[in-house]
């Protein structure tokens, strides 16, 4: 069953790397967060460990409900719909995704960590979104996808104590809220969130 969710995560990640509409990026992120919730819930069921239940419920509340809500609210406020001219156009995004995931699969072939291929793929797609886009909102979503990949990596390792996983998730949420506030300020000051205008400080 976890295989199905892992496959959905990969599909959503690959499709996300090339789309330009911000709403599709947000839905892709929501789908990924939901699959991570499902995987952690299934792990909780199989190991019967209480703290996995709490982590999965927290993931559900925070990443599947709260974060997309704030994102859609920001999109409405900032009035950005489509990334018109990204740094990496669609063709190169997909090609770089293929090459990086191939490399990552090859490197992590012999490792015993459970979900390492999917975690690395998510991180790479997130990095491509972060680097290859001009709008600050897309960059932030790329960062959130990297955090998703990190969480998947964490789920597959030996368990950390509950307080620490809780703190990591809370940290990610606070970071996201701060980024959203800063993007709001940038939009208010510059009237756009195109980061091309954010390259004034040079010497």
């Amino acid at each position, binding site marked *: 069953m976890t295989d199905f969710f892992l496959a959905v995560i990969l599909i959503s990640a690959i499709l996300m790397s090339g789309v330009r509409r911000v709403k599709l990026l947000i839905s892709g992120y929501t789908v990924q967060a939901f699959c991570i919730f499902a995987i952690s819930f299934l792990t909780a069921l199989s190991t019967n460990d209480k703290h996995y239940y709490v982590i999965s419920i927290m993931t559900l509340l925070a990443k599947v409900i709260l974060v997309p809500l704030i994102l859609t609210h920001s999109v409405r406020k900032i009035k950005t719909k489509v990334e018109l001219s990204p740094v990496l156009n669609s063709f190169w995004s997909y090609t770089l995704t293929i090459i990086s995931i191939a490399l990552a699969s090859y490197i992590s072939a012999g490792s015993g*960590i459970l979900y390492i291929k999917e975690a690395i793929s998510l*991180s790479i797609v997130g990095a491509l979104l*972060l680097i290859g886009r001009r709008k*600050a909102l897309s*960059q932030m979503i790329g*960062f959130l996808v*990297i*955090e998703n990949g*990190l969480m998947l*990596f*964490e789920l597959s*390792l*030996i368990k*950390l*104590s509950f307080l*620490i996983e809780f*703190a*990591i998730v809370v*940290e990610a949420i*606070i*970071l996201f809220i*701060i*980024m959203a506030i*800063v*993007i709001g*300020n*940038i939009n208010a*000051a*510059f009237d756009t969130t195109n*980061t091309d205008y*954010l*390259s*004034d*400080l040079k*010497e």
Partner: protein
Amino acid sequence: MQVLYFIFIAVISVLFFVLIKNVRYKSYISVLSSIGNLLVVLKIAADIQIYGSISYFTGTYYIDSLSLIQLFIITFVALIASIYSVKYITAEVEEGVISSKKATLYFILFSIFSISMIFVAISNNMISMWIWLEATTLSTAFLISFDGSKHSLEAAWKYLILCSLGIAVGLIGILVFIYSAGKVESANVLKWDYLVSISDSLDINLVKIAFTLIFIGLGTKAGLAPMHTWLPDGHSQAPAPISAMMSGALLNLAMYVIIRFYTIISNISALKYMRFLFTVFGLLSLVVAAFSMIKAKNIKRLLAYSSIENIGIISIGIGFGFFDGIYGSLLHSIIHAFAKTLLFLIAGNIIVSYKTKNLSEINGMIYKIPINSVFIIIGMLVITGMPPFASFFSELKILNAGFSSNYAIVAIITVFLTVVVFGAFLSHFTRMIFFKDKDTLPDEESLREKETNVFPLMLSLIMIVLASLYFLPFLNKILEKATLIVLG
């Protein structure tokens, strides 16, 4: 117990910030809380003289000489910065540049920032150290964009993205590190002292990957090139006391975390080439910083590049190894913290007097703000490594270690680049201080009053002098013990 004191002080001061309306009283409370933190640290120092090292809460918090150095730096720099903030913030609120609600936010974030840094220094648990380091990123993000201008927003966005990304990479490194400790189920696997004791049983390949990821990720936060690009923007747009704290304390703290990881693996003989990471990145930082300083046009950017250069020197010192190299790096981090604080606070005063950051528009300082110009001359001498100050001896020890190792060429390049840095500082500062450009002279009376923010500068100078007396037993013993900890 002392840990609870820190939390108690922080909570009480935040409560007061919210309740009290007068900005001046708020700033006094901030100073009082910094003094409180300092007293707790002094008590910890006294305990360490007796016990050697202390740990609390079943080893969740662990303090030894290495962390004690960082605690000293953090609390003293925080104290000096909070004393400076008294005049700085009250002046800005009186002139109406920022609202009183924003001043409250400033003080609250300042407290959170200091306490996060303190907790990074005293944590034993790797993940809790990472969490508090991330907390420093969160609390300084708004402090950088404090004046709300377009440039500061740009700096804040770059800072957020780059540092969060760096710390995320660092987290991956930490997780791989934990995984390399084998299938140990106990909670001890996250603690330093435990990991140092089992350092032989770690899986070599995984540790290599983990340490490289940690170095690059946390090196972003420490300002090593080529991950330094957020630093000139971030430190130049933040208000002066915050820049001082970030340059002085935060960069050192990030290096401290990397050094902690290095102590775990420094005993494994198969990984002795890892220390070349330190040398290579340090040298690169030095090169980038030295040549950028020549072209700098903004006084705070000049000082930010100087921070990158000094962190590069510290990193090269650790890369060289031997007793002298590490002792020199630790001493250099102390003296750099206080000297950079001095310089940034003077830069704050200059900006308040001249209302500009551009180097070409600042001239004739000796005529207008003589006390500050004397301090800036002394500060420049300290930071470039002039003899009676400790920075000379620290750089000397580092170069000594460099020439004893096989890679003397790196030491030669370091010498050359420090000369370049000295030349850059000299040319910029002499033009600023001594030359008088008749057209751009503002009127002289209004500037006399603004000279009065001099007390924190004197405090920094006292700390520099105290640090320069490092060979006296109280500092020497701590430094020696810390070096032995790093060398394993």
